[in-house]
């Protein structure tokens, strides 16, 4: 083998090992945070008790009080945080990569806002709760994405138009929410506001199942289509020249991106900025060593789970909604991104 081939192989292996190190580090951090989420709480359970509870379906050694806290409260909550965090992150990185713009995540370009407006309509106008609101949010997200796509279409979809129209849609949807608030009774406004901030406080198994099923379907599709991104990232013409089916792949990925955002929002509400920050954080960690889909999903899960821990425990005896913490985190990140991209004279 010639020196040149060895050089190329060496660089490729270096990139692959950087990917592995980042993934491994994030996985470890996620495991530790997950363990903390099962252990921490107002009702003190020793680590051995947590483990015993987790194994109780196998061992049959039941301790009703502890099992309820660990298996029915903390475990569903942490699981839902991981699944929604990963979904938001994947939705974000799909849109950011396809539209080549870090601002193009679903929580900025109106998809989350569409879900919010639909949910508030369900709560205020139809007096719905729980599952009905989730279904409404799902429909709202999909419908808004469709409207944005149609309005941006002019012989193809350009990133710039999607971002501008999306930001416009977000404003319209927030206006719908505000209008409904002026018409609603106080108790409905409270319920709607709690939903809008996004919270894991009421997490239970019923919230997890639809999202888990959606992810089981979406993950293989995403994995398969993300290969096309190797070509698509170089621009549409270059991708076609490399033999990629550009329009098919883009449409498939966008549908997957909308579905991730829609199902996650339906489960926990429009938790701010998780979709927006996860991809760029993962890409920064990788520093050019890959598209970062897997790593972004891990970052998203970590951000969601970590933020929820902070939200639960930072003020004693007060449970903040997770969206308050992610909102603060995301706002700081947005400002940093604007400063950095202004300095570089580009948003890319």
């Amino acid at each position, binding site marked *: 083998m010639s020196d040149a081939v060895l*050089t190329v192989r060496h*660089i490729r292996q270096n990139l692959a090992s950087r990917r592995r190190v980042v993934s491994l580090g994030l996985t470890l951090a996620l495991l530790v945070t997950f363990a903390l989420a099962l252990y921490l709480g107002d009702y003190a359970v020793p680590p051995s008790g947590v483990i015993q509870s987790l194994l109780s379906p196998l061992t049959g050694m039941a301790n009703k009080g502890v099992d309820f806290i660990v298996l029915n409260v903390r475990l569903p909550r942490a699981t839902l945080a991981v699944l929604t965090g990963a979904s938001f992150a994947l939705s974000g990185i799909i849109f950011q990569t396809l539209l080549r713009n870090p601002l193009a995540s679903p929580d900025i370009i109106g998809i989350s806002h569409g879900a919010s407006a639909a949910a508030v309509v369900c709560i205020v106008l139809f007096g719905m709760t729980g599952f009905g609101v989730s279904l409404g949010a799902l429909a709202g997200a999909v419908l808004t994405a469709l409207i944005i796509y149609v309005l941006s279409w002019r012989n193809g979809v350009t990133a710039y138009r999607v971002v501008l129209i999306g930001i416009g849609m977000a404003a319209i949807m927030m206006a719908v929410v505000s209008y409904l608030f002026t018409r609603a009774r106080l108790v409905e406004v409270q319920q709607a506001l709690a939903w809008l901030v996004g919270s894991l406080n009421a997490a239970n198994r019923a919230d997890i199942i639809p999202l888990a099923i959606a992810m089981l379907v979406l993950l293989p599709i995403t994995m*398969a289509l993300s290969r096309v991104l190797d*070509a698509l990232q170089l*621009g549409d013409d270059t991708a*076609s*020249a490399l033999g990629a089916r550009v329009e098919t792949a883009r449409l498939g990925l966008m549908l997957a991106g909308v579905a991730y955002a829609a199902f996650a929002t339906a489960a926990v509400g429009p938790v701010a900025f998780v979709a927006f920050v996860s991809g760029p954080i993962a890409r920064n960690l990788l520093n050019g060593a890959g598209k970062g889909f897997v790593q972004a999903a891990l970052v998203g899960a970590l951000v969601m789970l970590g933020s929820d821990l902070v939200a639960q425990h930072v003020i004693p005896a007060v449970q903040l909604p997770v969206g308050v913490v992610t909102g603060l985190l995301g706002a700081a990140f947005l400002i940093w991104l604007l400063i950095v991209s202004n300095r570089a004279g580009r948003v890319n």
Partner: protein
Amino acid sequence: MTINHQLLAAGMDLGYGERKVVDDLNLTIPPGKLTVIVGANACGKSTVLRGLARLLAPTRGAVYLDGKPIHQMSTKEVATILGVLPQSPIAPDAIVVSDLVGRGRYPHQGWFRRWTPEDDAAVAEALRATDTLELADRPVDELSGGQRQRVWIAMALAQQTDLLLLDEPTTFLDINHQVEVLDLLTDLVKHSGRTVVVVLHDLNLACRYADHIVAMKAGKLVAQGRPADVVTEAVVADVFGMASRIVIDPISDTPMVVPIGRHHVGAGAKLSA
């Protein structure tokens, strides 16, 4: 790279929406040669390249690759025969050179066939041919314009196609880098028998490097052939609407266009005017 593929356009109209940009073009690309397409801004030369490259479907007529209508072939089949470097490809943030060049292996990979030693060899060969091996582990956004263009050409080379189409690969480059890129393309034709088609702005570099030159004006083909036969004062006046004198390039013995303009009245201007 011993088989030469046939690429030709027959009665081809190209346009965007209602606007017709190229009108009834018949063009056969000579195999194993460097073909350069020239013409004034907005004459449709880049559009012709996009049509030939299957990136834009003709509104009338067709492009044939080895006798088959190219728009009826699968994208993947075309991508193993014909490589294209568009005018402004996008490099993903922080990507390193050999990773970018590796993207050229896309048509050779499949859902199940991932990276192989052959791919490493193809990337290494492309880096060597473009003299970018020592840049292999550098991030693309840190390179100079000339280096970056060579890296993009390497990406197209890693595709290992017999035909290579490039849209203005020398735009925005300093003169030394322009010459560097055209020397490289000439190497590809001379040493590996590839067929290369380039759209160029600079008429004199086109004359020097082209085996076959194609002159276009307002979407129509005006003249084609060897630069020495095609590039005359009359053709330049027709294509660019500009008076000029043709002298002989002292280095390459090819025609060299000296523009006249309104402010410099030397001996040449008087002769032509």
